C-alpha cells in the first residue's frame, strides 16, 4: 500500500516573477526571473539540478512546445526537461513531477517551473483554442467565465440561495482578495475595491461581473526540491516539506452521467479527501493555517470552500460573508491576493500559490505575513470547466508538524 508523499520531499528554494502585463518580456525572461530567485534561495548551482519539469498550458503563445524552452532559457546542463500540460493545473503538475522524481530517489534535486505569456494575443482574457477535433464538433468551448458562471445557477438552485445573497458573497470574495493584493508588490492588481464597485461592474457572463473574474497576465514561478536529508546537509534549518500532493481528473462522469448537480467540483472533493489523509489532517477547518485556492472566479473560490471540506455544503457563502476567509479571519484564503490580483498566467499559478504558502510558513511574507506562525498551508489549482476538469491539491508545512 502506498504511503504517500508526506515529508519525503523538502522545498529547497522558490522564486516568483512579478505577474502582470509584462509587455517588455518574453516567457524565457520571466522564467529566468523566477529561477534566479529560487536558485539563490536554494543556494545551489544549475549543475546540481538533476531534472526539470515545465508547466505551460498555452504553449502556442510565445514559447512553443516541449521542454526545450526551459532548458534553453536557463541553459540547463543537458538534463531531462519535461513539459507538462494539464489545463490550469499545469503549475502544480510540474511541481508533482519534480517532487515525485526526488521522492523516487531517482533525483537528488529537481526543478519545477510554471510559466505563461498570455499578453501576446492582442485581446484580454484567455486565448480561444480548440479542445480537440472531435470535441469541437459536439462540445461547447465557450469562455472560462461562461463555463464557471454556471456553478452559480446550479448552486442557487441546489441550496436555495437567493441570487442577491450569492452575488453579495461572491463580491465579498473579490473585495477580500483585492484588499490582500494591495499589500503584495508582486501582484498584478494592487488596488483595493469596494462592494459597490464589484456589485455594479459590467456583466461578463451572468452572474459574473468584471470583478468576479480574475484577469490573465504574464508570469512565472519556480520551485527547487530535494530530500529533507539533503536540505539539512546543505545547512537548511527551517525546512518546509510536502505533506500531500493529489490530483483528480474527471473521467466524464460529471458531464455525461446524471449524478452531478453542477454546483460543486467532484474532483476537488476527491482530491481533498485523499490529500488530508496523505497529510494526516483530520479536521481541515481547524488544522489548516492558510489556503490558496484557484479563484479564477469568485464563485469558484466560494464553492471550493465546501469542496475542501472546510465549509459545510451549502454554507460556504455564509462563511465567506462572515469573514472566515479574510486575512484576519480564522483561515485566510488568498492572503497574497490570489488569481484575482495576480492574474492567471496558467502554468505559473499553481507554483505561485505554493510560493506564497512557502513564504508564509517561513515568515518571509513581509507586510502581509500571517502572525500566528502557519503550520499547514494548502494550495488548490484547478484546470478545465466545472463539468470536466483537473483538480490538484498541494499541502506543504513545517517539517516537524
Amino acid at each position, binding site marked *: 500500500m502506498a504511503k504517500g508523499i508526506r515529508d519525503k520531499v523538502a522545498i529547497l528554494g522558490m522564486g516568483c516573477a512579478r505577474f502582470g502585463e509584462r509587455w517588455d518580456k518574453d516567457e524565457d525572461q520571466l522564467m529566468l526571473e523566477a529561477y534566479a530567485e529560487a536558485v539563490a534561495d536554494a543556494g545551489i548551482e544549475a549543475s546540481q539540478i538533476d531534472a526539470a519539469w515545465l508547466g505551460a498550458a498555452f504553449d502556442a503563445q510565445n514559447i512553443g512546445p516541449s521542454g526545450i524552452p526551459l532548458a534553453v532559457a536557463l541553459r540547463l546542463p543537458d538534463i531531462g526537461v519535461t513539459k507538462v500540460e494539464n489545463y490550469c493545473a499545469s503549475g502544480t503538475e510540474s511541481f508533482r513531477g519534480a517532487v515525485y522524481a526526488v521522492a523516487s530517489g531517482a533525483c537528488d534535486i529537481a526543478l519545477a517551473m510554471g510559466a505563461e505569456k498570455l499578453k501576446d494575443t*492582442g485581446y484580454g482574457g484567455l486565448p480561444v483554442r480548440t479542445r480537440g477535433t472531435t470535441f469541437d464538433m459536439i462540445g*461547447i468551448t465557450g469562455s472560462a467565465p*461562461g463555463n464557471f458562471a454556471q456553478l452559480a445557477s446550479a448552486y442557487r438552485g441546489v441550496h436555495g440561495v437567493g441570487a442577491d445573497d450569492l452575488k453579495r458573497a461572491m463580491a465579498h470574495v473579490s473585495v477580500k482578495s483585492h484588499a490582500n493584493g494591495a499589500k503584495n508588490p508582486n501582484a498584478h492588481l494592487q488596488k483595493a475595491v469596494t462592494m459597490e464597485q464589484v456589485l455594479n461592474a459590467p456583466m461578463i457572463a451572468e452572474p459574473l461581473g468584471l470583478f468576479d473574474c480574475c484577469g490573465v497576465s504574464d508570469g512565472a514561478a519556480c520551485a527547487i526540491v530535494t530530500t529533507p536529508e539533503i536540505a539539512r546537509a546543505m545547512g537548511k534549518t527551517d525546512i518546509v516539506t510536502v505533506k500531500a500532493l493529489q490530483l483528480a481528473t474527471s473521467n466524464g462522469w460529471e*458531464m455525461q452521467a446524471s449524478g452531478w448537480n453542477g454546483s460543486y467540483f467532484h474532483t476537488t472533493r476527491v482530491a481533498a479527501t485523499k490529500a488530508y489523509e496523505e497529510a494526516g489532517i483530520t479536521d481541515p477547518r481547524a488544522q489548516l493555517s492558510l489556503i490558496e485556492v484557484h479563484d479564477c472566479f469568485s464563485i469558484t473560490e466560494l464553492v471550493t470552500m465546501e469542496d475542501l471540506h472546510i465549509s459545510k455544503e451549502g454554507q460556504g457563502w455564509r462563511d465567506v460573508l462572515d469573514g472566515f476567509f479574510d486575512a484576519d479571519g480564522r483561515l485566510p484564503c488568498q492572503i497574497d491576493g490570489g488569481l484575482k490580483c495576480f492574474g492567471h498566467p496558467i502554468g505559473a499559478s499553481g507554483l505561485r500559490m505554493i510560493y506564497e504558502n512557502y513564504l508564509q510558513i517561513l515568515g518571509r511574507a513581509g507586510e502581509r505575513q500571517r502572525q500566528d506562525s502557519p503550520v499547514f498551508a494548502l494550495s488548490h489549482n484547478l484546470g478545465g470547466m466545472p463539468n470536466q476538469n483537473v483538480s490538484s491539491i498541494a499541502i506543504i508545512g513545517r517539517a516537524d508538524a
Partner: protein
Amino acid sequence: MSDFGILAFGAYVPVTRLQRSAIHATNKWFAKGLGGLAKGEKAIANWDEDSVTMALEAARDALDNIDRARVERVVMASTTLPFADRQNAGIVKEALNLPDGVGAMDVTGSQRAATSALLGALEGRATTLVCAAEVTTPKPASEREMAAGDAAAALLVGAGAPIATLIASHSVTVDFVDHFREAGAAHDYDWEARWVRDEGFARIMTPAIAALLDKGGVNGDAVDQFIVPVAVKGVPEMLAKKAGISDAAVADPLTAALGHAGAAHALVMLSAALEVAKPGARILLASFGQGCDLMLFEVTDAIGSVKPRLGLSGWLARRSESANYAKYLSHRGLLQLDRGMRAEHDSKTALTALWRNRRAVLGLVGGRCIKTGTVQFPKSEVSVHANDHAIGTQEDYPLAEMPAKVMTWTADALTYSPDPPSYYGNIDFVGGGRMMAEFTDFPDSALQVGADLRMMFRIKAFDENRGFRRYFWKAAPAF
C-alpha cells in the same frame, strides 16, 4: 381511389418575425416608395439556420408519429442550398437518423424546384420525403426584401392511406426570365413587374391551368383551394377569375405573417391548406418559374388521421417579434461588424472525424448500456456509469427527439457569437443522458434551471476560411 399520394405534411417557420416597418424606418431615406409594403412581418432564419436545418425541422414536423423507416428517398428542394456540391438532402437524412439504405436528391435552379420535386415523387413509386426550404438574402431596400420570408415545408409521398391524391398534373417549361440569380450570387435581379404579370403569370399560366382542369375533368368552380405562391398582389385573384375559380378558393399567400419563401412557398402553402382541408376537397397548386407546375389534388377521408406536430399555424404562433433590422443585416452578411479577435478562431472540421462520428454529430445519437441502461452522449467504448465501466456494451440511443431540461446555464458576453450573449449550459435529457449544449431561440431572460427544452438541428460554426459549415444540435425552448 389510389393508395398512392400525400401521406403526411409539415412545415417550419423560424421564430423571429422582423417587422417590415423596422426595415422601412432604416431604408426610407433611400427607398421611400416601399412605404406601402412596410406593414406586417416576415419570418427570418436565425444566424444558425439555413435551408438544410429548416428543411429538417419541417421534416420532423411532418414525420411526427410516423415510422421513419418507411422513408425510402429524401428529396431536398431549394434555390438557396448551402452546398453546391455536397448532397444537402443527405444532411437531412443524417439528421433524421434514417438508415443508410435510402435514396436522396437535391432539386434546385428554379422557383419550381419544390413542385417539380413533389411531382416527381407523386409520379414515382418510392415513399419519398419531399422537403423544401428557402433562406433568401434580397438586396437591402428592395421590394423583394419586403416580400421575402424564410420558411420550409415537407411532405411524405408514398403508398398507404394518403390524405390527398393527385388527380392531374400539367407542366410548362419556357425560358421566361422574370428574375435571375447567377450561381454563387447573393441577390436576385428583377425585371419590370408589369411585364412579369401580364406576359408571365397571365399569359403562361392561364392556358396551363385550363389544360390542367381539362386533364382533371373538372371546371374551375370545382376547385376548393387555389394555391398560387406568388407575392404579387392581385395575381392569384386574376388567375382564379380567368380559370373560373371562385375568389373564396384563393389561398392566403401568407404575405402579412410570413413573407414569400421562394421555391419552398408552394409547399408551405400546400401544407397550410392540408391543415384545414376537408374530405373531398380539390386543391389546385400552381407554381411559376420558367413555366409552371400545376397539380390538382383531391383530399381523402384519411385527412385528419395524420397531423403534423405543429403545422404551419403552430409555427406561425411560435413567434418572437423583432425590430432589429441591423441584426438581420449582420446575420445575412450585409453589415460587417467588428467581431473582435475571438471570432478569428479557426473552425476547421476534420472530415474524417465527421465521418466517423456522423451519427453523434448529425443525428444526435448517443449510447445506452445494455447492461446498466445508462444513457450517455456521446456513445463511448467504456460506459460512463460510476460503478460499472462496462466495455463495448452500448447500443445506439437517439436523443434528438427526447425532451430535455436546463441543468445549468449562463449568458456569456465574452465568447464570440453572432448573436451575443452566447447562451449555453448543461442539459439533462428526460430518460437519461446529459450534455453541454448551446441554447438557441431563447428570448432574453427566459433561461432558468429546470426549463423544458427541445433539441433543434442548427449551424454550430462557420468555417469562413474554407467555405464549410459545421452542423450540430442545440437546445431551444420546448414547444
